[in-house]
């Protein structure tokens, strides 16, 4: 956090730090904007990268997330943490962006996704992992964010619920469904090999 240390932050309470940062940003302090960015960019980038699977797209989505956040900072009321608020924007940006990217990829998949011969020669576990990654990719727009946030990035159900604007129970149910689908994909693949 290169810039956050320079700020005169008087509280250890994360919510208060959030509020102080937001006030300073709204007052037009460039250092505060950089501090806010530094404090949250890591998790935002990780999250959108996990959703997009591409460094360029992740950078684009992160950029768009912070631009929107700075534009709408006056709408941040502090009901949730700043991190949750930012992650809500990030998930929305990533999902919208991925819809567009999927349409484009559908046209060029045969060009961009040339079979990698080296990958074919790897063992059962690597094949299985690749199959599982494809199965995660194929999860629906409702299930994938929950699975990625919980099982991949380690968010709690409370954080996921706050970010996606769903009840905690729904988050748990979606994770259960996502895992069931993945187990099914895994079992089918393992079955093929055993047979």
């Amino acid at each position, binding site marked *: 956090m290169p810039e956050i240390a320079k700020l005169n932050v008087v509280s250890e309470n994360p919510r208060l730090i959030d509020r102080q940062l937001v006030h300073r940003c709204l007052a037009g302090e460039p250092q505060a904007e950089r501090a806010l960015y530094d404090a949250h960019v890591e998790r935002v980038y990780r999250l959108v990268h996990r959703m997009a699977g591409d460094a360029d797209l992740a950078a684009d989505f992160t950029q768009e997330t912070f631009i929107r956040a700075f534009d709408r900072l006056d709408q941040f009321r502090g009901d949730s943490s700043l991190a949750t608020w930012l992650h809500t924007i990030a998930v929305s940006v990533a999902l919208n962006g991925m819809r567009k990217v999927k349409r*484009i990829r559908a046209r060029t998949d045969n060009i961009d996704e040339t079979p990698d011969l080296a990958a074919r020669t790897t063992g059962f576990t690597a094949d299985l992992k690749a199959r599982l990654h494809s199965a995660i990719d194929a999860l629906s727009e409702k299930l994938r964010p929950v699975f990625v946030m919980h099982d991949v990035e380690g968010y709690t159900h409370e954080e996921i619920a706050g970010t996606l604007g769903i009840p905690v129970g729904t988050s748990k149910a979606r994770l259960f469904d996502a895992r069931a689908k993945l187990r099914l994909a895994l079992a089918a693949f393992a079955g093929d090999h055993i047979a």
Partner: protein
Amino acid sequence: MNDDRMDELLAEAARDYNAPADVPRDEIWSRIQAERGARRRDRSPNRVWMWPTVGIAAAALLAVGVTLGRRMERSASPAAAPLTVATPQTARDSTGQLITQLRHETTATDRRVRELASANPATAIDRAGGATQPDDATSLSYHLVVLKHLAGSEALITAFRSAARNGEIDAQIAAWSKELLSTTRMLEASVATDDPTMKRLLEDLDLVLAQIKQYVTRGTNNPEDLDLIEQSIIKRGVITKLRGTVPARNVPAGI
């Protein structure tokens, strides 16, 4: 396979799923600052007076792009070879300089497309969610930036064909094709595709640029792959369409 082993594999696969590398923190911050600056400028009261300036600058740059591209093609064609007085090394240096110049153009065009997209979010990423009608100034800006992009793409295709024939594809062409493909895809998500002809041309260009990018990335110089690219260019009439779209009057006499 038992349930425990299955869960273990699931957890392992989840850990590796789309694993990110280091965050390009400073690069993204610079881009955010640039985009926000551009957006502020576009919102300023003087915005209306900016468009003619943008138009003139774009037209001038377009002329430069087309000029350089067609000059490059002429110098690369066998018929033109006897006229050149440069030594092979000098000619290569000169071509390298041209490509550097054209890449600068491409980078500037890409930046402009991103500025337009961020100033008009409904025309970029969010367009999928519900389009809004662009105003005249936005349409004009897109039109000009598309023309610049097409001129740059024509120059790249020409440079690629020439370099591939001589087995001299370098990192510059690889990076250039990647940048142009990225800009093409941004334009495909913009109001530029409201015109069906332009939409088709951008789609064709997307295909050819993706093939070129893949060819140079692989670096195998496989003649069959090169033949496939050539077939795409010819079958889709990409060069003809590009030249039909980029106004010839912007090309100075003698080019």
